């Protein structure tokens, strides 16, 4: 219908090809680790921290901090993509795979549900299909760059789901709840996309 729009006088700063190939549409690389949170950073003492798996009928598994620390940990190096446009490449994390946590629930006879809701200190929530947190795709991370995860980055423990926009990687995670039906989480209720695939640029509700 019309000529594609061109911004007069804009040249831009292209990334080297190897980096550009790892950046989803609309993203730019940052060496920093920006912090984005909707409210004050919660600070839960490790002595009172626990992690719950919860089914429709109540908690099905609970780990205190020491028990959680004793679970097998994995090291992963992944690229992360924030909906606010920054991406950070080759970030190094350590944590417990969600597969391992769900195996513990399965051992207690808990049947899988099609969705999970992540719940955090401070009231934050985010919703995910079960298929996106299983099969080696998600972790509960407790270390970043070899050091305990800083509170402003979600410490003591945050969800890590690197193949989705980073708001899905809930900070200050305390609970995963098995859900029969999908329920919108926090940002998903405030106009952000329900699924959030960065490679399809699913930033906001209504994006295809």
């Amino acid at each position, binding site marked *: 219908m019309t000529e594609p729009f061109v911004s007069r006088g*804009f040249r831009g700063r292209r990334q080297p090809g190897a980096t550009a190939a790892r950046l989803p*549409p609309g993203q730019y690389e940052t060496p*920093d680790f920006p912090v984005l949170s909707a409210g004050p950073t919660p600070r839960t003492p490790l002595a009172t921290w626990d992690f719950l798996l919860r089914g429709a009928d109540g908690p099905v598994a609970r780990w205190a901090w020491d028990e959680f620390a004793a679970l097998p940990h994995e090291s992963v190096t992944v690229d992360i993509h924030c909906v606010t446009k920054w991406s950070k490449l080759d970030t190094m994390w350590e944590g417990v795979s969600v597969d391992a946590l769900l195996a513990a629930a399965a051992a207690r006879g808990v049947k899988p549900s099609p969705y999970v809701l992540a719940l955090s200190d401070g009231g934050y929530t985010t919703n995910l299909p079960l298929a996106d947190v299983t099969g080696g795709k998600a972790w509960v991370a407790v270390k970043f760059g070899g050091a305990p995860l800083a509170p402003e980055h979600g410490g003591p423990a945050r969800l890590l789901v690197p193949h989705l926009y980073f708001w899905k990687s809930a900070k200050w995670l305390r609970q995963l709840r098995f859900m029969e039906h999908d329920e919108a989480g926090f940002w998903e209720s*405030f106009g952000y996309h329900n699924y959030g695939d960065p490679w399809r640029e699913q930033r906001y509700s209504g994006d295809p």
Partner: protein
Amino acid sequence: MSSVIAATPEPGSAPSQRAAIAWRLATVVDVVTETPRARTLLLDVPGWPGHRAGQHVDVRLTADDGYQAERSYSIASAPEDPRIALTVLRLDDGEVSPYLNDVLRSGDRLELRGPIGGYFVWNVSLGGPLLLVAGGSGVVPLMAMLRHRAAAPGMANMPARHAVPARLLYSARRWEDVFYRAELTRLAEADGTLEVAFTLTDEAPPGWTGFGRRIDRMMLAEVAWPPAERPHVFVCGPTPMVEAVAATLVELGHDPARVKTERFGPTGGS
């Protein structure tokens, strides 16, 4: 106001499918120099669906070979203003902000989409008191709230203003770095229910009577409404400032659920 707003669901509801937020071609109708490093773009946006104070837009630049860059910028204008105002701080090592500051001029066009964000928002019907804490260019979405507070229907009369008293604490390095200096001074002078306090962390002009240090507990205790007044609190600025201010407000007894924050890192808005 707009359907975008009416459709906002509560957390826990079934995910809704809404129309996509469309890219629109805005025209720059005026440019205002705010500081040596920042200017405001005043935009005419055909079909703009309306926004709430505190929301932002995505801006997309396209080079002639199709290369694109996107960034988010907070809206500085009130929902009552027919033009959309974006105030952009020039980051010397940025890709987009130098273009918006140095190259773009009146008559140019700019692609954007929005409004975006439904949490860091305020309007007069939410009531007060209103406490705004800004660091540097973090004042932009808070200015939209103050402009809305002044321009909203019915807010010209004093009883309406008394129902939503507001305070802004604004931290900047130097006086010359303060955005909207004249307008903030004018708004506060004309309105006894609005208090504006500045703190200058690096250098104060001769005869300066405002604060002259980073925002700290004593300053917040002096400026902020007591927690018992249950103010709506909005904090926006660089990450270390927001972390410190939000944590201190909680220590002072403010309900964390009423302290809403927006943070940007060193490259967060480039």
